[in-house]
């Protein structure tokens, strides 16, 4: 049978929760169209219950992920980049199908891979940079270290369908957090394919959860979820930032809005973004001071 006459197998785009690829529990979907207006895929229109499930999965994965060594997290981020490199063509095709030129799509993917590498390298370094030993004036050893915040909600921007996801995800998980990502609503295909990359990259299930769906429907549920410690989005008109913050205020959620202008620029990657999603923990312990170490007891 010639390639011409062969009937192509279409891909089912599903969501990614706890290392599995379920359909939305709601059974709903919406059509993703190409520039010409032709439907190229039906993706899940996730519900608040999918948000709930994703948060549960992220919480369950958090203990193990945050406990991994920085070195190990770095290895895994690097592995994601390696796997993405191998899936370049598929994701490029999806981007092109959604209206990107070949050159723009290539740049998007290359920047994404390089950004992963950038953060892979940070995994075991930001702690040294942002920790301190504090010279308290009593007989105590006192040090402050960054610790991951926990479960983070990430709202992908309505541009940069892959780079947007990775720019949010990489600093988040590099720092030991787990997350759920709401993909670019109109152009979610790259995000779903990226989930397949994650699934084959040694990333433990639940560390990253990716939902597709309507931003307007799900944002409030994410911001108001009591078990989501922080929410990050990019500056973009579609989001009601004030309302999001009001929702977050109900339980002192950490809310961040990163400048969208930086997405493609050098400033779009920084250890300070890792630090946005870190808490500082300070620990005290007494120091014995006895004869021989300079004093008498």
């Amino acid at each position, binding site marked *: 049978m010639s390639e011409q006459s062969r009937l192509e197998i279409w891909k089912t785009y599903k969501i990614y929760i706890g290392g599995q690829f379920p359909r939305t529990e709601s059974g709903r979907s919406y059509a993703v169209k190409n520039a010409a207006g032709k439907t190229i895929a039906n993706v899940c229109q996730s519900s608040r219950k999918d948000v709930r499930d994703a948060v549960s999965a992220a919480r369950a994965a958090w203990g193990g992920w945050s406990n991994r060594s920085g070195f190990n997290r770095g290895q895994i981020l690097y592995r994601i980049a390696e796997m993405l490199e191998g899936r370049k063509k598929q994701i490029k095709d999806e981007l092109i199908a959604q209206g990107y030129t070949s050159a723009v799509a290539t740049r998007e993917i290359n920047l994404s891979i390089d950004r992963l590498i950038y953060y892979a390298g940070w995994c075991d370094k930001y702690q040294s940079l942002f920790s301190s030993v504090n010279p308290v004036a009593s007989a105590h050893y006192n040090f402050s270290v960054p610790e991951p915040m926990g479960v983070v909600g990430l709202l992908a921007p309505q541009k940069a369908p892959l780079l947007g996801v990775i720019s949010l995800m990489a600093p988040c998980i590099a720092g030991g957090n787990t997350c759920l990502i709401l993909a670019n609503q109109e152009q979610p295909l790259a995000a779903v394919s990226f989930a397949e990359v994650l699934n084959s990259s040694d990333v433990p299930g639940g560390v990253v959860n990716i939902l597709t769906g309507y931003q307007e429907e799900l944002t409030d549920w994410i911001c108001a979820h009591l078990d989501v410690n922080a929410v990050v989005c990019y500056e973009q008109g579609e989001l009601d930032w004030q309302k999001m913050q009001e929702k*977050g205020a109900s339980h002192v959620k950490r809310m961040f809005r990163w400048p969208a202008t930086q997405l493609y620029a050098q400033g779009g990657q920084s250890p300070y973004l890792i630090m946005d999603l870190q808490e500082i923990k300070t620990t005290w312990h007494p120091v014995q001071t006895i004869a021989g170490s300079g004093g008498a007891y």
Partner: protein
Amino acid sequence: MAKKKKWDYSPAPESKQPAAISRRYELFINGKWQQPTSGSYFSSINPATEEKLSEIAAANEADVNKAVQSARLAYEKYWKKITPAERGKYIFRIARIMQERARELAVTETMDGGKPIRESRDFDIPTAANHFFYYAGWADKLDFAFPNKKASALGVAGQITPWNFPLLMAAWKIAPALATGNTVVLKPAETTSLTTLKLAEIIQEADLPPGVVNIITGAGQTGALLTKHMDINKIAFTGSTEVGKIIQRTLAGSQKKLTLELGGKGANIIFEDAPIDQAVEGVINGIFFNQGHVCCAGSRLYVQESIAKIFIKKLKDRIGTLLVGDPLDKNTDIGAINSAQQLKTIQSYIKIGKAEGASFYESDCALPKKGYFCRPSLFTNVAQSNRIAQEEIFGPVLCILTFRTDDEVIEKANNSPYGLSAGVWTDKGSRIFNISKRIRAGVIWANSYNLFDPTSPFGGYKESGFGREGGLQGLQPYVQLS
């Protein structure tokens, strides 16, 4: 413990005279003492005697506007323009004058807030002065604090402080704000404004340019006006989680930066291999320091079951030696509850605890006839499900729970919306590192409790707030990085 003959300490009251409290205090705006637009004043009461100490100006919207305006002007006109080194020298001056006027400040703090003179003299005032001294040195070294970034001031900082450590919290707020080049409008808690107003005198004495620091007094409404003001770049609040949430909501959608230091329900965990007698002391210090009016108080005690009996016995004996009474007496361990309202809150929690079936124990000490006092007390037979184990009481009331394994106690300690502080007592180093890592709280005291230092960042996880005060990390909330 058996009693034979008593040796009681004679009264050793500190003189009130050094306090030199004025009959009336105005608002400190633009370097001058200004009458409130409303012309109205409220009284500040000594909670130990219920006597009026002074009357204090109530700032309304016009006054808030005036204060913010003067802070903005001072920022543009003076503070932005002087060199960081000069800025630092002003802050050093403040620290030195605070040290010189330490006794006055200590006596005032004790009379105004009810805390024992030993604490205001040995902790609040020196620590506050040290905080200024610490941040003064940062003013011209900010380039070293943020690698690869340029730090610049935000502009005008609006700050709201609580009543439990009035002067110290003012220092925690003002010192880093000034060091990073911001100007300040600060509102102290209405029951304890006096030392903050004396700090304004000190700032005046230090010759700071007018408007760099403005102190406006008033109730919660004044603070709300401050948080809503459009020309403020930064809000820093220390107080209840309830009000913190309101402020976070108020600021939603605005460009204002925010730090919140809110409530807590600190877990203090005692393992069977702990240094028991020092742990008892740590628990006592953890819950009865400052009458328990401490957001990081170790109010949830977790004792490993194998030592619970002896530990509780020792605690009860130790509580019996705490001296409750006149805060000005140098021997007083537990002074007055800050206000009638707070006393009522504490008493209602004691009632709730009893109703929930927990066993109540309190010291049998006599209480002064006048003033707001509360005996140090503890509840045993408490479960996670009891309200007294979940909610912040903010008084000298300890809840004691028991546990069996490391995993269990970690889970229980984290089983709270708060995450400010925790204590871990064990002889095993590897356990300390494990527990202190897995407890979701901003400050962990291992084999110690309730220690503070200007160099040590303080602040919470979860509903205990965000941002840090103190140390290198305490600079970040007051700068923008580029």
